[in-house]
């Protein structure tokens, strides 16, 4: 074994006419039993105080055997005899290293033909240019992992200005499912950012979209860590603890009373808030929900008319009725009035320049939304939203959309991110920076397929977000399947275990064959990092996040079983206030319309009142016997109020 002293040379730069040393790449040999490997950082000291730092990107071993046939001849065709040869052939370990940094930077010259040493901790800082943002008066380093190679262990930091803006921003992580530990890595990065983001740069929060299973459902619960993990945390200077402030948001299931999330264990439900939107919340993002093939310019114009002139306003139709449209129910009544009015008026096919066919088409598409996104979008106008404007520093807001179909996920993603952008532009979100974590980015910004509203929005964030403090952390299996402008604008690119087919795509042609092999065989917990300050990819190890993993969380906190409406109401009210009498609740809601019960329950859960039963009872209102509602005469000017159960 070669010397373990970091100051002892482990190799020597070699250069031939066919294999010269350049300013960017060189070759060196080592003993055959060296501790060196792909990804190790080395130092070459030349004359005149010139020091070159480089990362090993390739390695070859060969002997003086000129042709395989010579080995066959020597062993007389017997492989066993080959192993008995009294002398081992001369063997060489020849390494290729890519230059990370030359000091001084100018004049840029070929690497000196000198001794090669393993980089020390201090060398790592200089090699990765971390001295320019870690060893400064106002350190900007965010620990990303531990460089461990050749017996050296050193923290690797990213520059906060280049990770979270404004110089550069965004982070993209690729790797095969289950082995690349993408979600774990992002959870660790967020913990690192929350603990080490410089105070001088302001406040920061994270919005995470949980798109599969229970992945992000237990960020506030402590997970198990090995001693090795704790050691890494210690070396990186980060506390191994779960997130202190986490708020969960989940839509209802189709029944409108059970939350569509795996975080429904009674012990955890107090931190889960329903995510419910009404007509206004949806209409602004109708482009997400409506098929562009169906909705043409005429339909667009009519939807704009509705959004600008009708919704949330008093609108008088052509037949004397005044409408106040706040819910999908109100909208349906308006459409009914228009169709009836046109029918009664004769053979006219046009209403306010809009053809009746266009109106019917828009009506069909819009009214279908509340069905397709049932649980997230309500007919009755109830709203429970993310607290835009009141975001807290170092808080994580998890939107659990895993149980929703693609359309609902698109709507949730688009609306939330759009609102974040609007608030950040106005500087009234509550924090200065927001990290948005999106897994399965291939669903939202694929490299092929039609242009979608979601993709356009992601492109906009990628290209402009860093100026606003809106930072995209995204993950996917195959980077090559993501829109180039989205991944291209990610200042920091991270790679876990990669698929070999993916590595064969042109995007990875800058990597050496050995680096690709390392990527294809990388164990869990290791990542390759590309960052603006690092001129070559760097390999690091990161610890498991100090939070409960999804599967273990579900095991420890099993989701609550679904139950009939009246039982569900009782359980949820009792969860808010143990003094609530189940019998009184059941008596109260007996015979009431389900929509009213659901609305009252949501209002109570959002208000979290001192006297839960009283509040619920008031929100539900007095019981009114069902009666047949007759349509008012066309001439009578009437206002349809949303929440008035006594309305016509």
């Amino acid at each position, binding site marked *: 074994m070669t010397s373990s002293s970091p100051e002892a040379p482990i190799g020597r730069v070699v250069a031939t006419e066919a294999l010269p040393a350049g300013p960017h790449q060189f070759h060196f040999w080592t003993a055959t039993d060296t501790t060196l490997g792909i990804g190790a950082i080395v130092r070459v000291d030349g004359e005149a105080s010139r020091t070159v730092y480089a990362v090993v990107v390739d390695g070859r071993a060969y002997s*003086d*055997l000129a042709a395989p046939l*010579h080995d066959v*001849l*020597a*062993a007389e065709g017997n492989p066993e*005899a080959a192993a008995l*040869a*009294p*002398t081992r052939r001369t063997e060489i370990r020849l390494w290729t290293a890519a230059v990370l940094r030359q000091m001084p930077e100018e004049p840029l010259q070929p690497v000196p033909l000198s001794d090669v040493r393993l980089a020390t901790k201090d060398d790592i800082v200089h090699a990765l240019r971390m001295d320019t943002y870690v060893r400064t008066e106002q350190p900007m380093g965010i620990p990303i992992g531990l460089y461990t190679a050749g017996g050296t262990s050193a923290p690797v930091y990213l520059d906060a200005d280049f990770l979270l803006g404004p110089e550069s921003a965004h982070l993209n992580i690729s790797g095969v499912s289950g082995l690349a530990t993408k979600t774990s890595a992002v959870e660790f990065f967020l913990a690192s950012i929350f603990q080490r983001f410089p105070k001088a740069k302001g406040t920061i929060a994270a919005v995470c979209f949980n798109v599969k299973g229970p992945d992000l459902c237990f960020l506030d619960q402590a997970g198990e860590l090995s001693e090795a993990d704790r050691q890494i945390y210690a070396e990186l200077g980060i506390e191994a603890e779960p997130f202190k402030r986490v708020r969960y948001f989940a839509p209802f299931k189709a029944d409108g009373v059970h939350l569509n999330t795996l975080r429904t264990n009674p012990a955890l439900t107090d931190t889960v808030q329903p995510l419910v939107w009404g007509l206004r919340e949806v209409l602004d993002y109708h482009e997400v929900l409506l098929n562009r093939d169906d909705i043409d310019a005429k339909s667009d114009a009519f939807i704009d008319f509705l959004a600008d002139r009708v919704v949330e306003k008093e609108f008088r139709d052509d037949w004397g009725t005044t409408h106040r449209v706040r819910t999908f129910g109100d909208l349906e009544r308006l459409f009914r009035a228009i169709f009836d009015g046109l029918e009664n008026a004769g053979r006219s096919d046009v209403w306010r320049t809009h053809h009746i066919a266009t109106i019917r088409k828009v009506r069909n598409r819009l009214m279908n939304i509340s069905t397709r996104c049932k649980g997230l979008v309500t007919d009755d106008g109830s709203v429970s939203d993310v607290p835009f404007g009141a975001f807290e520093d170092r808080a994580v807001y998890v939107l659990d959309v895993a149980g929703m179909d693609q359309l609902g996920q698109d709507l949730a993603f688009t609306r939330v991110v759009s609102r974040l952008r609007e608030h950040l532009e106005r500087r009234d979100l509550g924090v200065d920076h927001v990290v948005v974590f999106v897994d399965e980015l291939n669903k939202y910004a694929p490299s092929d397929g039609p242009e979608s509203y979601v993709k356009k929005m992601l492109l906009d964030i990628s290209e402009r977000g860093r100026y606003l403090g809106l930072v995209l952390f995204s993950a996917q299996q195959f980077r090559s399947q993501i829109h180039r402008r989205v991944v291209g604008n990610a200042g920091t690119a991270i790679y876990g275990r990669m698929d070999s087919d993916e590595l064969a795509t042109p995007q990875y042609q800058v990597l050496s064959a050995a680096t690709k092999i390392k990527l294809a065989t990388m164990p869990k917990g290791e990542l390759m990092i590309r960052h603006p300050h690092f001129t070559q990819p760097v390999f690091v190890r990161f610890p498991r996040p100090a939070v409960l993993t999804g599967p273990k969380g579900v095991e420890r906190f099993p989701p609550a079983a679904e139950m009939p409406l009246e039982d569900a109401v009782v359980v949820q009210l009792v969860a808010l206030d143990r003094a609530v009498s189940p019998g009184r609740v059941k008596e109260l809601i007996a015979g009431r319309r389900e929509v009213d019960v659901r609305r009252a329950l949501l209002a109570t859960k959002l208000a979290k009142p001192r006297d839960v039963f009283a509040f619920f009872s008031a929100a539900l209102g007095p019981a009114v016997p069902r009666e047949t509602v007759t349509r008012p005469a066309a001439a009578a000017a009437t206002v349809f109020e949303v929440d008035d159960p006594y309305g016509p």
Partner: protein
Amino acid sequence: MSTQGALREAIMQSGGTVGTGSVLAYVPPPISAPFGSSEPVEDVSLRCIDVRGAAAPPGGTAFLDGIQRFRVAGRIGIVPIVRGVAAAAVMERRDGTLAARLLEKEECLVASLGRLEPTAVARLESLGLPLYDSTDGDRSHPLLDIQLAGRLVERRREALERRVAEQWLATRSAGWLLIDGSITALPGLETSPAVLGVIKSHETQFLDGADLVTALTLPPGHRSSVFCRESSVRSRVYSWYLRLWPWEERDLLHGLLRLECAPDAAALGQATEISRWLLAERAPLSAPDGRWDRLLYPVQHVEAYLRAQIGERL
């Protein structure tokens, strides 16, 4: 039938072996000492002895080789000024790996000093390199003078070889010192019981008649009886032939080694054992070196080491 075919047929019908020569376009240079004399030791008439396959070599075996380079750096008048470099090394094998134990290098100048002006000689002396006189006779010859200078550099190489051999033998604990070439070229070593000379060239033949036929047509894995080679100039040593590779369809001398060791009874008893481990040295093959059939890989390794030490250029 073609001429070639007819010739092959004629040779085979006469009990011969075909295809044993390569095409030559020149006459090989004359051999200075083509014949030597010998006397039987192991058998009265030389026998072909099957050594019964290869065996693992003894531990701690060392290999010695030397090289020299020289070139005419210039001429003063018509006198060539030759710059030479010689080196010798011993590499020891431990656990299959060769490691350099001893290295001696010497750079020198050679010229016919008697034919140079004293001022020119003084200038050459001032360079600080050993300066050797190659004067031999009164007359100058543009080619012979260079040959004489080359021989002087060769002597320097032999001197270095002897020095490293003596150093190694002085510190050795066990194992053989295998020398590339005749041990009689290193006076004083030919009586050492731990030195084995491996001769690849067969310019001087010490056998005659049926003994010579037996020696030169040995089948692979066979050795000849041990005989004692004699020389009026050089000392007496025990010697025998060993065939490493089949020679049929190739050349009579293909894969044929002649071995030399000190003339004592112990060496005689070890001839077969030594032959067996030399058979094991067939692997690794020293190809693509043209001498691969007779050049042992460790010896080639020492040679490569020396070349790296003194460089290919002067």
